[in-house]
């Protein structure tokens, strides 16, 4: 376990919660930059595992992945610190914004701003996907699972949870059959 203090972990996630605009998925590039690259608290391979695990559990994906990383860095209290950090700014901003709700929703500059933020979020997700792709060791097994999962998601529009469950079972079964036959 890392030497980072709980308070520091809380503030790292507080900052992440504050810049988390445009939906939960953008948390992946932010966590990668903040925890893997800047602070070296986590390696990218672990983060990618948590991304899939977070989507296969119920609840809010961004909260789940924060708790997984918090737990990895500092145990149970780390998970709590990360969770509290990630919800602090959103909680306060909703409490404040609730009273001026209509002004915010209808303001054309704010709507316009979020058009741009939305596109930036997609750019970040594309960049993350590219980077993960470059850094992962890919063998035939990887490529086959990747392509079939992608086709199932995009063309057949199955939900992420279904895809994760189906391909985890298929993948693990394939691995165990290969092992029994003595193939690597």
């Amino acid at each position: 376990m890392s030497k980072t203090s709980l308070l520091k972990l809380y503030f790292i996630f507080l900052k992440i919660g504050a810049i988390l605009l445009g939906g939960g998925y953008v948390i992946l590039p932010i966590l990668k930059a903040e925890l893997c690259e800047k602070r070296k608290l986590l390696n990218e391979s672990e983060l990618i595992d948590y991304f899939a695990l977070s989507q296969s559990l119920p609840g809010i994906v961004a909260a789940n992945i924060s708790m997984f990383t918090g737990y990895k860095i500092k145990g149970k209290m780390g998970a709590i610190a990360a969770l509290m950090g990630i919800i602090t700014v959103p909680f306060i901003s909703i409490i404040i914004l609730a009273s001026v709700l209509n002004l915010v929703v209808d303001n054309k500059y704010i709507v316009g701003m979020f058009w741009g933020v939305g596109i930036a979020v997609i750019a970040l997700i594309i960049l993350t996907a590219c980077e993960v792709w470059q850094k992962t060791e890919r063998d035939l097994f990887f490529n086959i699972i990747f392509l079939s999962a992608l086709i199932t998601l995009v063309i057949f529009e199955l939900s992420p949870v279904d895809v994760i469950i189906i391909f985890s079972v298929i993948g693990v079964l394939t691995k165990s059959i290969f092992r029994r036959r003595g193939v690597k």
Partner: protein
Amino acid sequence: MIYLLLAHEFLKIGLFSFGGGYATIPFLYDISVKYGWYTIKELTNMTAVASITPGPVGINVATYAGLSSAGIMGALIATISEVIPSFVLVIIVSKLLRKFSDNFYVKSLLTVLKPISCALLVAVAVGLLRPEVKDIKGIILMAVLLLFSIKGKKDPSFYILIGGVAGIINTIL
């Protein structure tokens, strides 16, 4: 007791909603019909506010719904209740992963999760690309942002800032 009811409803949402923030909306709709703590119109507004406020949409909507139902205490109870079930599950899964890290099946599972994660990421990008980048301005902004990455810009908040500023400039023009 409205606090107990809130806790009960949001624990349920936390346990049964799969797939992130927007998956909680149908549950919130049910709550509105069942208890009348807020109207459907208010729920639509909540979703709009949640998506332009920092933080995960699911958390924002829970805070908002709790606030409309029972004030700040309600907001706190709804938000915390929503994340308790997955907190328990995350701890259990993390412990199992740690305990059985040498187990063949756990190792295989983690190997399989990598390509699945990659596919999920690409699918998210594809899914967002179609509705969001629909005109020439969107394509140009996207191209500019991707060019920054070739220049080696790494910080995600930089991209979000550029996107936001470009959006405001676009509105003014």
